[in-house]
Structure formats: C-alpha cells, structure tokens
C-alpha cells in the first residue's frame, strides 16, 4: 500500500471511530505496519493527542518498529505497545479505543495487576468473532506503562482482542479494517449487555444461556459467517462487480453508510442484496463508513453448493419469493429487546410490539423467531411482516423494490426497541402501552 493510501485509510477509520463514539475526542490510537522507501519496517501511528475524528496527514507518524521512542515524540504514548502487537505474526494493524460500554461491562476495583473477569458476550457477533470471551487484565498503571507494553501483546498473540480494565480495548488485524471490526465488536458486546440490563435481563443467566445455546441455522458458529472475517480474506475491499451501473452502486453505498452511521449493525457486519435475473448483487459486509468500503459482488443465484451464512439465506429468499431486496443486520437494540420477559412470564414473547404511535401503525408487531428457524419459516414471516428478528441471528428485512425499503424496516425495529427501553427506564408498564390491536398479529 502506498503511504498516501494508508494515511487516507487511517483518516477514514478515525472518522468512523468518531461517528460511532468509540472514545472521547482525542483518545485511542490507530496503527499499521508500513515499510518505508529504504525498506525499514515502521509503525504508521496516530499522533498523541490528535483528534481521531478529524485526522490530518501530519497527524500520522512513522517511527521505526525497532526504535519507537527515537525522534518521534509526537507519536502516541502507546506506540511501543502497538509496535509489539504489530510484531505478532500476521498482524498488520492494531487499534486501541476506550469502548465505553465494554469498559463499563468489565469495570472493577483498582488493585494489583493481574487477570480480571473476562467480557462474555451474550450477542451472536461477540460469540462468533470474539471467541466467546474477551480477556480483561487489570494494570496497576493502566495507561502507557511499560507493563502494558509487555503484557498486552502477549494477550493478543492468543486472542484477537483484549481489554485493559477500566481503560479500553486493544485489537489486532490483518488489515486496519479487521482491527477496527474487532474493536467495534467488543464495544457492541458491551452495549448489548448494557441494553439487556435496561430490559431487566439477568446477565449471569444470559451468560450461561449464551454458552449453552445450540446454534440453529441462524446462530453463528465462530468465524462461519459471511460478514467481517470472510471479507478480510478478500483481495480488494473496494471491488465492485457492477461499476457499469453507478446508480445501483450508489444505492449500496448509501445503504451501507446508513447502517453504519445509525448503528443498525456494527462495522462490516450485516449483509445486503438485490435480486437480478439469475444473479444477486451482494454486499457481504453491508455496514460501512464513508471511505472504508466493503466488496460489492455479483454472484449467481443458483449455486446449490453454497451453504455459507448468510449468502445462502439471501439466495433462499430470492429463489422462493418475489422480494427484490434483503438486508440482514445485527442490531444491538434488537438483540437486547428480545430478552425482555413480561412480568411473571418464564419465556420472552415471540414478538416485539411497538409502543410508539408511528411504529404502531407501520408495524403492528415484529415477529421474533427461534434460532432453530428454518429458512422457509423466516420467509413466511417476511411475507407477512416484511421484517423479522431471529434469536441469535439478527434482523432480516425485505423489500419489493429497493434496498432503501428494506433498510427502513431494520432501522425502524431499532427505534421500536429503543422506545420500549425508554419506557421501561421511566418505569412505565409496557403492556399498558402496547396497542390492543397488536395482540391479534
């Protein structure tokens, strides 16, 4: 990668960090391996105190990997940590952010250095991509200390991410996008737990349930999804198979930006498709910020051997219905909302009922399907409701005409969940807010 391209990528990811509120205005670091014209391995890293959401070219420093503290006093105070992470085999990029929700989820009293209780994701992305557990380490001096430079890389030799207790998360990746992807998933797992608490869920019970859950078709076996990790095996993240149709490409980009910016699905998760005649146009990592694309592919509809999730589900929808578009997202608000149990009920309900006026008319109810749902059952629900939540499987929505139409459903479900959460926070009785007519659906 040319130096200029790398800088542009770091600027775009910094902006994406700001967009998703990954840390305060100045914290965190973005780093990548880079070899200069003399062939010297360097760390490309953000300047200390720089605003990650508004990086300029001069905010990127290039100290040598072997002498990170020589002549580069502008580089991040955590440059040495990143240089060591980047020395791990296969690590081309590393990132650090304060990931507030994940920090809160793992917060503990100050004390001696040592391992702390891990962050156990209860959401499918965390379970699938974060190995079911993110290690947490308590440091006596939890910022810029030599101890951190020594211990953090050791964690990352074995795990894709780790957390410094009460401080933030570190992640490595084969590229900057992958490091950011992992960082986002850590924060997402913390956020889902935060929301679940708001919906009255018992976290320890959820952890046990998550660990014991049998994944159905929609459940995520680790690294088996088409989102994120698969994408980073792709040669060109900016590949577009339908550049000859700029209007269609714009539709995908616009949709991807909305998904990312509104937090409908974490970075490079979710997927979106448009049905053509015997192919489908597909974004396998639909959530994307500006300047950090995901591949836009044209793939055949009739590949019977293709079993990977979620491509096979998109194909199934198009092969067995007239829907023209489909979007799948891992929306944290929905992941948490489906955990809510009505008072006195042992099991959570099989639907989410809107309590706000707009959604009450647009969506009398949003069905919640079990993780073991078969594609045909999902499609039936989509026929009746256009959108459905699958336990441990995200939100699926369809459109008869456009991506925008499907996106509206995913986006609306997020808001529906937030209204319910807000009502609970105010101590309101949800059953009194749910329209009587919704019970018929």
């Amino acid at each position: 990668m040319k130096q200029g391209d790398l800088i542009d990528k770091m600027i775009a990811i910094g902006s994406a960090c700001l967009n998703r509120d990954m840390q305060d205005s100045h914290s965190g670091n973005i780093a990548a391996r880079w070899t200069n014209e003399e062939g010297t391995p360097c760390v490309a890293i953000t300047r200390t105190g720089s605003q990650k959401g508004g990086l300029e070219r001069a905010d990127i420093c290039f100290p040598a990997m072997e002498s990170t503290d020589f002549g580069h006093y502008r580089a991040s105070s955590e440059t040495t940590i990143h240089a060591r992470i980047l020395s791990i085999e296969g690590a081309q990029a590393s990132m650090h952010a304060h990931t507030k929700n994940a920090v809160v989820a793992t917060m503990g009293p100050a004390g001696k250095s040592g391992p702390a209780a891990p962050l156990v994701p209860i959401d499918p992305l965390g379970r699938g991509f974060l190995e079911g557990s993110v290690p947490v380490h308590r440091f006596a001096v939890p910022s810029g200390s030599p101890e951190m430079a020594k211990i953090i890389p050791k964690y990352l030799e074995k795990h894709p991410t780790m957390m410094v207790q009460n401080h933030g998360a570190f992640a490595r990746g084969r590229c900057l996008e992958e490091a950011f992807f992992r960082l986002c998933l850590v924060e997402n797992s913390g956020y889902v737990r935060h929301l679940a608490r708001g919906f009255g869920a018992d976290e320890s019970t959820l952890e046990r349930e998550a660990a014991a859950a049998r994944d159905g078709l929609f459940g995520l076996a680790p690294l088996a999804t088409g989102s994120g990790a698969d994408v980073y095996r792709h040669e060109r993240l900016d590949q577009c198979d339908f550049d000859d149709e700029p209007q269609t490409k714009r539709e995908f980009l616009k949709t991807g930006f909305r998904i990312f910016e509104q937090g409908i699905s974490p970075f490079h998760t979710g997927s979106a498709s448009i049905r053509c005649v015997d192919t489908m146009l597909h974004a396998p990592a639909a959530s994307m910020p500006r300047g950090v694309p995901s591949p836009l592919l044209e793939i055949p509809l009739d590949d019977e051997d293709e079993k990977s999730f979620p491509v096979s589900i998109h194909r199934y929808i198009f092969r067995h219905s007239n829907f023209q578009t489909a979007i799948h997202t891992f929306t944290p608000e929905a992941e948490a909302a489906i955990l809510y149990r009505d008072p006195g009920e042992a099991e959570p309900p099989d639907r989410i009922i809107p309590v706000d006026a707009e959604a009450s008319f647009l969506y009398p109810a949003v069905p919640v399907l079990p993780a073991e749902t078969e594609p045909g059952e999902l499609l039936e629900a989509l026929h009746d409701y256009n959108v459905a939540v699958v336990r441990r499987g995200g939100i699926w929505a369809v459109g008869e005409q456009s991506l925008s139409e499907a996106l509206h459903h995913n986006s609306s479900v997020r808001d529906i969940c937030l209204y319910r959460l807000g009502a609970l926070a105010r101590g309101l009785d949800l059953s009194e807010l749910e329209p009587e007519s919704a019970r018929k659906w």
Partner: protein
Amino acid sequence: MDFIYGGYRGRLLEVDLSSGKLDTLPLPEELCKEYVGGRGLATRLLWDAMPPEADPLSPESAVVVASSPLVGTPAPTAGRGHAVFKSPLTGTIGSSNSGGDWAVFLKRCGYDALIIKGKSPEPVIVKIETGGAKLLPAGKLWGMDSHEATDSMLEGLDPKISRVLTIGPAGENQVRFASLVNNKNRVYGRGGPGAIFGSKNLKAVVVSGDQAVSIRDEELFRTGVDQGLYRLRAAPGTNRILRELGTAGLVRLIDVIDMLPHRNYQDTIHKLEDLNKISGEAIRKNILRRAKGCYRCPIACQRHTQVGTKEGEGPEFETVVLMGPVCGTYDLEAITLANYGCNEMGMDTITYGGTVACAMELFESGALTAADTGGIDLRFGNGEALKSLVPLVARREGIGDALAEGSRRLAERFGRPDLSMSVKGLEFPAYDPRASFIQALGYMTSPSGACHLRGGYAVSLAFFGGPREIPRFSVRQAPAAVRNVQNAGIILDTLGVCRFTSFAFHVDTWARMLSGATGAEFSTSHLEAMAERVAALERLFNLRAGVINTDDTLPERFQTESIATEEGDSLIAPDKIEKMRSGYYAVRGWDPGGVPTRETTERLGLSALEAKS
C-alpha cells in the same frame, strides 16, 4: 343464503345481447381464492366468455366488468371497477380500471361482476336493480354524449343508489379508443372498451342497488383500515401533493427527472415558464372549482374545473401532458376544453393526445397534408386543432376517421409507422421511457400495450416511492423490479382500490383488510401468487390472440434517439431491450419466446385452462 366468503355477493350477471337473455350465475368459490375480484376475476371470466382469436368488434367478443370483495366496504378508495376485454385498438387483452363508484352500486344490486356477450339487433341499455336485470331500448339515448345520456338515464331514479356506465358518440362509432364513462367523468379509458359496447349496440348499464356489503371479521378488517388510513395521512404524496395539486402536480416533478415528453417524444426539453402554464399549481390557481375524492377516498385528487362558462372534470396529469407538451402546446384552456370534449364524447384522452401528436409530426414531415386534414393546420402547438378534432374523431368525420383508428394505423396509413409512439398499438402515457429503464420494460411487457398502470407504475416510485425508490437506470434490476410492480398493480386492480394508495402502504395492509372482509385467509404471498396467475393468464390470452415476443419492444425512436438525463445521454438500445426482455421472461417463468412454461402453468394452476384452449 350467505356466500361462503364475506365481501362477495356470490353472483354474476351474464347478458347475452344476441338472444336478449340475462342470467344470474353463481360465482364459483374457487375463483374467489384464485382470482379474488376486479382484474383477476374479470380476466378469468373473459377467458371463458370469448375466444382470444375473435375480432374484438364482433358479436363473439365479450366485456367483463368486475368489482371485488373490498368494493363497497369502508376500505379506503375501494370503489373501483375493472373492465377486461379484447382491445380493438391493440388486438391484445384490454384491461382498464376506473374510479367513480359505479362498481359499488353494481355490487349493491347483488352482483360481483357483469359479463356482456353477443350483439343486440337494436341499441339497448341494461338496467340492473336489486331484484334483477332487464334490457331496455336505448331510444333517443343513442347519439347522446356521455353527460346527456347519464342525466337522461338518472331521471326518475333515486340518485343516492343509482349510477350509469355509458358510452358517448365515440363508442357508438367504434372509435378504437372509445371509453366507458361513469359518474360522467370517470372512465374505463384505455384500449377501447367503449368501441366494443358500440359494436354490440349497447349504450349503457344502469345500476340501482342498496344492499350493504357484509364484513366477516370486523375487528381484523378495521385494524387494516386504520393502518391504511394512518399511512395515507402520513405520506406526502397522498396527504398533500395529490390533494392540493391533483395528479397534474406531477408535471414539474416528472420534468425534474427528465421524463416529461415533448413533441411526440422527440425530446424532453421544456421551458420552466411553459410548464408553469400547465402545472398542478396553474390548474389550482386558474381553473379549479373544487377538489373531490372518489368513493371512500381520503386522497381527493379529482379536479372539478371551469373554463369560461363550461364546467367539467380534469385535466389529469396524463391528459395535460399528452394533449399539451406532446402536442407542442402549453395552452391550459385548449387542453382543458379538449379534455372535457373527450369525456363527453367518451374517448381515452391519452390515446387521443398521442394520436394527435402523431398526426402533427406526420403533418410537419409532409406525410400528411392540408388536403388530407381538410385544411386543418396540424403543426405542433396548435391548441385550436386539438379542440376542434375531438368531435371529428368521435364522429369519424373527415380526417377524424383516420385518427379514430389510433396512431399506429394512422402512421401506417400515411407511410411513417415509425412515428407512432406506441407499444402493441397503445399510445404511451406521459413518462418518457428513456429516463427509466424499468418503466421502459414495463411498457414493453404490459399485456395491453404502453400503459403505465398495467405495465407496472415503476416510475411513480421514483418520485412518490419514499423508501421504495427504484434506481431508474439499472438493466440488472429491471426484470424483477418490473415483475414486482406489475404484480403489485394486479393486486390493487384486483382489490378494486386506487394505485395511489401504494404511495402510502403496501400489500400486507390490504391483505389484512381482505382477510377481515372475507373471513378467509388472504396472505401477501397468496396475493402475490394470484398476481402471477393473472399475469400468466393475460399472457396466454395474448399468445392465442397472436401477440409474440418481438411485440414486447419499444418504438425505434426510443432505441436510436437519446435524451439528456441526470445519468448522461440515454436511450434504450436493442441490446438493452433484449437483455431486459429475456430477463423478464425468466423471472416470470416464461420461456425465451415469452410463453409460460409447463412448470409455470402447473404451478399456477393454469394447465387445465391451457389444455382446454
């Protein structure tokens, strides 16, 4: 005894004009589930009522007008009827939908649909009442325009329960694009059903009925209605633009997306000050008397207007553009008066405007001369000619006789078939296909020719679609997108409701209302399968009528002459046509020749019908 399903009357009225026999027939229960009503039911009934090979103006042909289980209920806009016939203009299946509320009162008489066959030896009317139906001599009604005839037939009837469906002189003279008129100004316009009435010596069908329509599951039905009404109020297209400006509110919007045709579709270039003379805003400011809605319609896009001392209804958007810029004029007064004339004479204003525009280009090219026109100066922009030709066409006098055949036959007769802007002989409406590939494919594959409604009103989603905006320039997306908008249109035509509701809500809401009204489960997937069935049956009809795959195309002009659009210069080159057409056949389950495959007909339950044919 109650019919098995709510919403229906369970009876059909079949009128054989040759024998003078009127039969009340039971509505087969299976047709309710398979074809529902409106366009679906009428298409299925036509299949049995006439051979597709028949001359549409012969006694062998038939016309079916059907209501639906929602028609006459409180469901929003549910007052529309659908006429299906073989078009004398195109030779394809003709399919035309109308607002007004004649269909409501047909149903209140106790009938779900009316089947008309044969030919009466003398001009007659059909009079239907709650207790039965009879034929009456038309007498002096024959020769009256649609307004006079309506007033005359309503004399002595209770105006609260009586309505008239009639033809004007154009229908009597078998003008190939003559319409059926109800409520004086609401028309079954496209494809020439009025000419068939005329060929059968049938002037009108008068209905007087007061039987209420029953709803089986009131709570479920009401939930759907409430949802629909809420969304109609929330959507700007249905809550503001159409109400405040009528359909002509589209003039400026369609110009913005480079689709507003000009001078027989030679270009889409207009001056803003010209458009401001014919826009919805101009109509509201200069000629509007009051706005009104059809049956149970909260949208209220009807425009009751006045020019000088003459009052009437319209012009609607399509009429404004076809009689206006397509004929090279922006004279709102001339357009409005020509529109009034067409309604009174009973002629489709779109085909009329398109045919006059064709004549104007023929005239300017020298193919048509002043000697041919009887001295009428037919250059583009002549609003006077636009007005004065109306009665000549309706009565087939002078050059009017040639125009009464429609643009395709006119252009062929004068040696320039390339100047007819039509598909299968039906003139284009007011959206230039070069600015939307998806709309272009809709025109190509519409069963009844270049009709924006039967072809799938794809372009409407470009400006009123809200979240459903379709990219206009995607060849890849076009086939499935067109199939979907066509199916959605079939569903609305089948339910007897207005297309404009689709700017606010979708099939799932209608499915709730339909399930509530009938007491039977009509899911969205069931309705989509029904739409596929209707589309295939329309195709089978057309195939037997002689339509072939190469008829699914566009005029040469759209293939070779580009217009300027936001995506650059645009035309629909032959390779794009072929790619979109073959893709469309594939997503429909039709073979490369456009014939539904055996697998498709079996899946849709059409094998027996096909075999019977």
